[in-house]
């Protein structure tokens, strides 16, 4: 790797650490949902995509089937595929390097890379690799810490974990609610999912809101 721009390195490291810290919340949520410490760590090592990981433990923790959990997590993972499309022409890697690049293609690595556009393509590559590896290391470390912590606590409700999980989701969706249109979609999704919960089995009410998103996005907005 050629010389790394100081601003790029600083940005990558600070993003990696801050985002990695959230791993604690995931580790705790996963244990509260009934997953073992080993399964929790595997989710962070292998799935490595925060929203998808929260989704699988959220859906299955609420009694949903593995299939509805996987479907929800995978719908959330589609965007990583689109990040890959954006990053491939910048990274230009093949073979094993491409496999590794794919695994660390997430919101943050893509975001930092695109943020370096003014500094040139080399800085973009550095931003991608540094942030991707940085988040990977911190996210997995803090996942383990959160899982061990939650295991030691016992009853999740006594420590407020039952509210920490939806609060964690709220924190993930909040930055995306940029306009009235997005906020209406969010509110409608909450209402639809709650309304459907007593009627169809756990997990399906959440997947149903993807159809709502499709309906909202069907027509171009002016």
């Amino acid at each position, binding site marked *: 790797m050629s010389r790394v721009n100081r601003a790029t390195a600083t940005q990558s490291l600070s993003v990696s650490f801050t985002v990695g*810290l959230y791993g604690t919340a995931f580790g705790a949520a996963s244990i509260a949902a009934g997953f*073992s410490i080993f*399964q929790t760590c595997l*989710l962070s090592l*292998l*799935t490595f995509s925060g929203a998808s*990981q929260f989704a*699988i433990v*959220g859906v*299955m923790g*609420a009694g949903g*089937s*593995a*299939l509805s959990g*996987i479907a929800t*997590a*995978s719908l*959330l*993972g589609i*965007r*990583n*595929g689109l990040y*890959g*499309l954006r990053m491939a022409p910048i990274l230009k890697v093949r073979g094993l390097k*491409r496999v590794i690049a*794919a*695994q660390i293609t997430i919101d943050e690595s893509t975001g930092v890379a695109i943020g370096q556009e003014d500094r040139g393509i080399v800085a973009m590559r550095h931003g991608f690799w540094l942030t991707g590896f940085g988040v990977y290391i911190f996210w997995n470390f803090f996942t383990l810490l959160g899982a061990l912590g939650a295991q030691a606590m016992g009853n999740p409700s*006594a*420590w*407020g974990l*039952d*509210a*920490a999980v*939806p*609060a964690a*989701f709220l*924190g993930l*969706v*909040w930055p*995306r*609610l940029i306009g009235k249109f*997005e906020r209406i979609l*969010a509110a409608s999704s*909450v*209402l639809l*999912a*709650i309304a459907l*919960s*007593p009627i169809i*089995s*756990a997990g399906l*009410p*959440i997947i*149903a*809101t993807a159809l709502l*998103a*499709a309906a*909202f996005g*069907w027509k*171009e907005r002016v």
Partner: protein
Amino acid sequence: MNGLWLGVLGTSLIAFFLKFSGHSIPEKYVTNPRALRINTLIPIALLSALVGVQTLTEKGKWVIDQRLAGVAVALIALSVKAPYFVVVISAAVTSAVLYRM
């Protein structure tokens, strides 16, 4: 193999498949503006639904308990631009205090 393991491995396999296909498909094949638009809206719908279901339901029943107070505090924290960690911790503390009362 039990359900939890199926969930862990299934989610991981598909997550990697999605990431890797993005790196392997030429960009020109995926430019449908409608698909791209819907894709940015899907996380909003799913994550909001998860917030609602995890706050107000339990085993398929509507339940109002300490979780709602916790999430309300998280909402306040977010609206005053508190960092993510403060948001999660404040929700947990609120809910735990009410649960223990």
